[in-house]
């Protein structure tokens, strides 16, 4: 958001969130950088860039309501690890994928723990529905609680 960039804030606004799988209120202020967040005791929204260490936030999870994970290009997959690390550490707030978020990745993003999506280019809703319905089961345990095929096989 151009007006936010001017103030040093990087986050997306609520109106850019296309998909959200949560019932709670959206955070009404923009996210700050990881460095700014760690120094700034009152922030509740933070934005992770691909080079940031998500584990820097682990001591502050109780006061975070929103983590944005930026995907500046679709091919940079570091954000998938950042998301799982936060969920594995017990983070239950909003985890929002922003940036070059493509429809063919959103199912994997959900599996890694994302529950909100703010793509640079809005996704076709029929494509989104098809992407989430595509694979009947999953082979791995991840952050979404889905039961992997190996568990289904062995009850």
């Amino acid at each position, binding site marked *: 958001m151009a007006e936010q960039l001017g103030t040093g804030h990087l986050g997306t606004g609520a109106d850019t969130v296309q998909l959200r799988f949560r019932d709670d209120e959206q955070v009404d202020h923009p996210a700050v950088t990881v460095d700014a967040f760690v120094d700034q005791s009152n922030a509740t929204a933070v934005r992770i860039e*691909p080079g940031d*260490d998500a584990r820097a936030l682990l001591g502050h999870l109780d006061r975070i309501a929103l983590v944005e994970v930026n995907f500046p290009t*679709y*091919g*940079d*997959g*570091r954000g*998938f*690890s950042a998301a*799982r690390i936060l969920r*594995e550490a017990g983070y239950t707030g909003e985890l929002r994928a922003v940036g070059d978020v493509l429809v*063919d*990745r959103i*199912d*994997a*993003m959900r*599996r*890694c723990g994302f529950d909100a999506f703010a793509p640079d280019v809005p996704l076709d809703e029929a494509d989104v529905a*098809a992407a989430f319905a*595509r*694979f*009947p*089961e*999953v*082979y*791995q*345990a*991840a952050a979404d609680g889905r039961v*992997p*095929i*190996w*568990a*289904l*096989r*062995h009850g």
Partner: protein
Amino acid sequence: MYRYDTYDQAMVDARVAEFRDQAQRRIDGKLTEDQFKPLRLMNGLYLQLHAYMLRVAVPYGTLSGAQMHMLGDIADKYDRGYGHFTTRQNIQYNWIKLEEAGDILADLASVEMHAIQTSGNCIRNISSDHYAGAAADELIDPRPYAELLRQWSSFHPEFSYLPRKFKIAVIASKRDRAAMRLHDIGLEIVRNAAGELGAAFYIGGGMGRTPMVGPLIRDFVPLDQLITYSEAALRVYNRYGRRDNKYKARIKILVHELGKDEYARQVEEEFAHLLEQNVEPPLAELERIKAMFADPAFKPGLPTKADRTDPAFALWMDRNCHAHKTPGYISATISLKPVGGIPGDASADQIRLMARLATQYSFDECRVTHAQNIVLPHVEIGQLHALWQQLDAAGLATPNLDQIDDIIACPGLDYCSLANARSIPVAQQISERFAANGKADAIGELKLKISGCINACGHHHAGHIGILGVDKKGLENYQLLLGGSEAEDTSLGKITGPGFDEAGIVDAVEKATDVYLAQRTDGERFLDTYRRIGMEPFKEALYG
């Protein structure tokens, strides 16, 4: 061998539907080539110099007769009647139409096959020992572990956009026939001092422009932690592997830059964390998979010797067969390296014949080797002559396994959009040269490998003799390397000096072998002589 259950089949069927949809959107113009590219690459569809190329996964190189037969039918129906077996135990088709790609995937799915993750920056097809389950020297069949990893790595939500492609090999013998230490991760199934099975993890090997032999990162991971440890190794790579330069993005660079001890420490930390996350399938899943790799019904008391009165057969048996763990059986290699042929190519009819022979003589199983040949793993020694006669009649009985004319070569500039030079004609000329001069038999084991560019798909770093094609001011030029090995004595070849033109490289190879023939002592292979006498005598002969 492994058979899909309804879960596996549903996953592959879903992928076929997904790709059909993606390809149709491209054909209809709803996707640009730029948008379509990452999608097709996740499914092994490359746009090459002349056409689309489709790479089909052959997990750990194992195929049933029906699967092999289908590969032949696909060659006829959708290609120009040929398939090309690759150094990662896969098969490629070079003349594919985008409009038909979905139909090919559906045909593959009907025999429990796919092209999932045969390209892209993801975990690729898992390779293994082509004599797995048959070799007299193996500890245990490595393929169940490879299958466990195949399922874990398929559509992995966290590791589908890695810094670069990721290749895993699994072996279970001290004899390495899978170039294990030249993979991003090489697993060797071992037994520890307590007698328990587990895996040694070698991480950070690879070829390409910066070849490295993978160091041992952990000497023993228990069987019920294999997936968790793999996940930890991949997560450290996904987070910290370089993304600023694609030529420095493979895990070997990360391991090298961090140092193997620091990389191992980071993996241990992540491993300890992930052990709490319950990502590991239960051992019951491994047992379920293992049951499908149980030995076929080998007959006891079979003859252990063949009738060797036919000298051509006896020669082929000596050259192309490998000791089996069960008395009365043997593993037979079908060479796809006839004199002057294209390494790894087989016609549709040859593929279907090999499928029938696998069914008739080898418990319905065959294997693709990383050296681009086909193995029938379980042949009764008493039936070996009958098998050989059928192979011989079809031009498939070339007795040259691991000899100088059993060349590994990438497709090179004849097909590949990345190549700098042609590989196939050089392979053909070397093979013809040594057929004409009759020296191949005298030379014995000599693994020659040719790549048409620095990406090293033809494994030139690991050849006893390696050839690397480069572009020198618009002309094809070939560098010569000596002393590489992809076996348990893994080593990387060294460049002899200035490169050669196309005719010159064939002469240079012959000169190098002449040095060997003149200098070898009893029982030495080319590689042994090179290691003993060093580069100098070869340089002298080549440039002196």
